[in-house]
Each structure stands twice: as C-alpha cells, then as structure tokens.
C-alpha cells in the first residue's frame, strides 16, 4: 500500500489538487464529507532568516577557551575569492563538522588551519587564525611545527609505501620526539591501539601499510596523525572512500579521539555530520552561513539555505 501510494505520487509530481480529488478513496466518503483540495503545499516559512548578501553568520560562532580562533578569514586563489570573511572558533575536545555543497569553501577553510594552502601557488590568505592565541599566519611560524600540532587525515587513505610500523613511527622520528627505540615502540603501539587497529595488525607490523584494506589504511593514517600527539586533527572527508562498516569504525574512533583532541571534519555526508559532531558549520559559496550546536542545526536550522541544504532541496 505504501509503495503503491508512493508510486502514484511519483508520477504525479508535483502533487496537484485536481488529480488528487479524483482518487476513488476520496470520493468514497466525499459525499457530505470533506470537500478539501489537498494542496500538499505550504506557505514559505517566514521566520527563517533570509540573507541578502550580508556578511553575518547565523548562530554562535565563538566558543569559550577555543583551540582555533578565526576572524575575518579570506582566501583568494588568484583573483577568485574562495572564502569570504569567515569567523569561527574550534572548541577543545569536540568535533566541528563542516558541511556544504562542492566548492563552498569548506575544504579551503580546513586547509587554512594547518597552512596547507601555502602549497598552492597564487593563494592569498588574509585575516587572523590563532592557535592557542598565537597567530599561525605569522611569518616566523614554523610550518612543520604547526603541522605537528595540527594533524591531517585525507579523503583517500595515503599510507607511505613503508611498513605499518614505519608509517606510525614516521612523525615521531622526524619531529624527534622520541629518545629510544623502546619509546618509539611504545608510541606506535598506543597510537595503533587508540586508532583501533592494534589487534588487527600487531602480528604484521613489518608488512607494508599499503597491503591493508581501505578502512584499515584510513585508521593507519589516523594512527599516524595521532602518533605526534597533535592538539587538533583535521579530517577531509575521511570516510568517503570507505564502506559503511569501515565508516562506522572510523566514526566510533572519532568519538573516542574527541576525548583528547579537537577534531575538525569536512564531510559530504550530512548524516555523518549529524552523527559525529557537536557543532556544525554550513558553508555556501565561500561564506560561512550558519554555525551552531549540531543538535540544533539538524532540528532547527535558522538560515533558509541551511534548511534547504540539509533537507536535500539543493546542493
């Protein structure tokens, strides 16, 4: 019955009153009954905030005791203004999800947080991005040091063509954070444990990391990121190349990591943002449209564009 009625409605797109009133079921008790014309329509909501090129983000973008504090961040790729006056804080021990259609600037913003945009010629970043109160855009900022504090996990798992052990040990080795082999063993072991991979790989630490499954590789990359004990972990669509089970594992891992790190995740899956994050930021055409508690954004978005995007009305 359900399928049948869906079928009817599908053919009828968009539902119009005349065809609906022809349904036999309506006529059955129509006599003297309700002579209503189902419209299936709703007047457009008025209380949602509509913006007309304003530059104010809807919702609370600042948090107490922020790890990252970003103000008026603009990014230009050559003459293209890719990110426009973004103000947002990243809170400690919580997950900030960034959502929005392709090309909205969410990945661009993520890459600002560990100065990955430096690697793209013709990129200019203006505004203030402070990590623990210190400006990371400063000329004297050591980028290698910054990236040790702000780890990153990419969309496609990208283990180095080395052993599982060496993948995890790589960061501590180059940053010189360990003194002995025993220390290093310890870090590799705990990192793999925290990434939920230890039990699966403990007997084959010397096998190549590239021989693992996609989900395992991604968790290896996460283990590699946390081996240098960063303060913040950036994740750029970490699950888009994974199957649902591997995705669930990574999401479960994010939940655990949140107890120790701030996590910023860019995701195309709104359900994933709803599942893993405490705060959600919605970007649209280079602007930060709305940011707020995830619980609120997915039940009660304030901005029309946010509502339209999360309910699947454009994107």
């Amino acid at each position, binding site marked *: 019955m359900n399928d049948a*009625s869906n079928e009817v409605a599908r053919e009828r*797109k*968009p539902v119009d009153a005349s065809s609906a009133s022809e349904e036999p079921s309506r006529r059955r008790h129509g006599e003297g009954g309700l002579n*209503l014309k189902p*419209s299936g329509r709703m*007047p457009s909501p008025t209380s949602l905030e509509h913006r007309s090129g304003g530059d104010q983000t809807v*919702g*609370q973008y600042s948090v107490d005791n922020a790890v990252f504090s970003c*103000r008026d961040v603009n990014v230009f790729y050559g003459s293209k203004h890719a990110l426009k006056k973004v103000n947002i804080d990243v809170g400690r021990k919580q997950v900030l999800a960034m959502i929005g259609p392709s090309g909205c600037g969410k990945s661009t913003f993520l890459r600002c947080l560990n100065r990955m945009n430096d690697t793209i010629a013709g990129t200019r970043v203006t505004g203030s991005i402070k990590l623990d109160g210190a400006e990371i855009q400063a000329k004297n900022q050591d980028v290698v040091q910054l990236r040790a504090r702000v780890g990153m996990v990419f969309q496609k798992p990208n283990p180095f063509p080395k052993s599982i052990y060496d993948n995890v040990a790589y960061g501590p080795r180059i940053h010189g954070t360990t003194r002995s082999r025993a220390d290093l063993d310890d870090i590799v072991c705990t990192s793999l444990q925290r990434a939920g991979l230890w039990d699966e790989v403990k007997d084959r630490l010397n096998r190549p990391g590239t021989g693992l499954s996609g989900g395992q590789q991604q968790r290896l990359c996460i283990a590699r990121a946390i081996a240098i004990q960063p303060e913040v972990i950036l994740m750029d669509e970490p699950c888009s190349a994974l199957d649902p089970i591997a995705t669930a594992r990574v999401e479960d891992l994010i939940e655990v990591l949140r107890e120790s790190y701030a996590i910023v995740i860019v995701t195309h899956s709104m359900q994933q943002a709803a599942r893993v994050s405490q705060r959600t930021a919605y970007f649209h055409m280079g602007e930060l449209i709305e940011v707020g508690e995830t619980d609120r954004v997915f039940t*009660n978005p304030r901005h029309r564009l946010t509502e339209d995007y999360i309910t699947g009305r454009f994107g």
Partner: protein
Amino acid sequence: MLEGHISRAFDGALAALHIRVVEMGGLVMDQVREAAAAYTDWELGLAEHVLERELQVNQYNATLNEEQLTLIARRQPVAGDLRAIIAMSKAVAELERAGDEAKKIARTVLAQGSRPGPATSRDVRHLGQLAVSLLRSALEAFDRLDGSLALEVIARDKELDSEYAAGLRRLMTRAMEDPRQVSVAIEAAFALKSLERIGDHARNLARQVQAMGRDSQPLPETAMTPD
C-alpha cells in the same frame, strides 16, 4: 515546506502522506456527523454504519503509521521534513481518537437505552455541529498548512467548551425537574462529553499544523560579536 526536494520521489511520498491524513480526517469528520445524527434522531442504521466505518479509521491509522516509519527509515529526514512527519503522525493519532469518540456515541444509540427528548437532542445536535465545524476547520488548516486558521481553531475550541458546560447545566436542570429524565441525562452527558473531546482533538490537530508550519523556536541570540 513539503516540496522542493531534489528527490522528487521524496516530495511525492511526503505529499501522498499528507493527502492520506487529510482523507482520514474527512472520514473521521463524517463519522462524527453521523454519530451525532444517529443520537439526535435515534437512528439505529446510522449508528451501525458508524461502527462499521470505525474499522476503516483504524485501518487508516495502522497504514499511515507504517508509511511514516517507512519514510523515516528510507529518507532519514531532518529539520522541517522531520518535524512535518512527526506532526503528521501526531495528527493521525488525534484523528484516531476523535473517531473513537464518535464510536462511543454510536454505541449509546445501539444499546437502545433512553431516547433523548427534543431539548436534549437539540443540545447534542448543536454541540455536534460545533465539533464538526471545528474539525473541518482544523483539517482545512492542516491541508493548506494554514497557521492563522489553525490559531482560529485553537481559539474556537474554548467556545465549544463553554457550550458544553451550558449544555450540561441544561441537562441537569431537566433531570432535576423530572427525575424520569435522569437516565437520559446521564447518557446525553456522555455524548456531550465525547463531542467536547472531539473539539479538543481538533484543537490538537491545529497545534500540529503550527508545528509543521514553522518549527523554529527563536534562539536567544543570532550572530555573536567576536569574544
């Protein structure tokens, strides 16, 4: 609110659900009118018809619940869509209960207890008309997702409540004047109470329209000034 999705199938499914709730409402409204008429005219046939169609009302209730669950499972709606589906689910529950009240009135007639006199009939007929009219307005508001009409229904329910109280007082007066009327008065009081409850269900339905119309409770603040 219900349309405009990229997935037109989702639009269609939501609209189909909406239409079927309105259909169910039409049936329930007819049930209320027939039940009230069965009581005031003391018509056995009408009362039997109400009881037969109560099965249809229950069928609507069961099917619509299933459809709502399916839609939630398959589409994982959020924000306004989720609110709309939950509101429709509550609307169905209100309609189902209104249908139950109509059934109670019909049962009184079928029991063939004490036939109401002209004055009592008039009171029940009057309250029945009010209840049907309230239910009709609530359904119109639900169908068009018309928030202002919904507000009107919520206000008009108070009118029905005071008519109910007045009807009860008149029943009591008649029973005191003529003790042979006591059994009629008790049954009539239950019928009036059922109609009053139907008014409440119409009001609750109107509240769901408001929940669908727009969701958001305003936040304390919008954009914050930095630090």
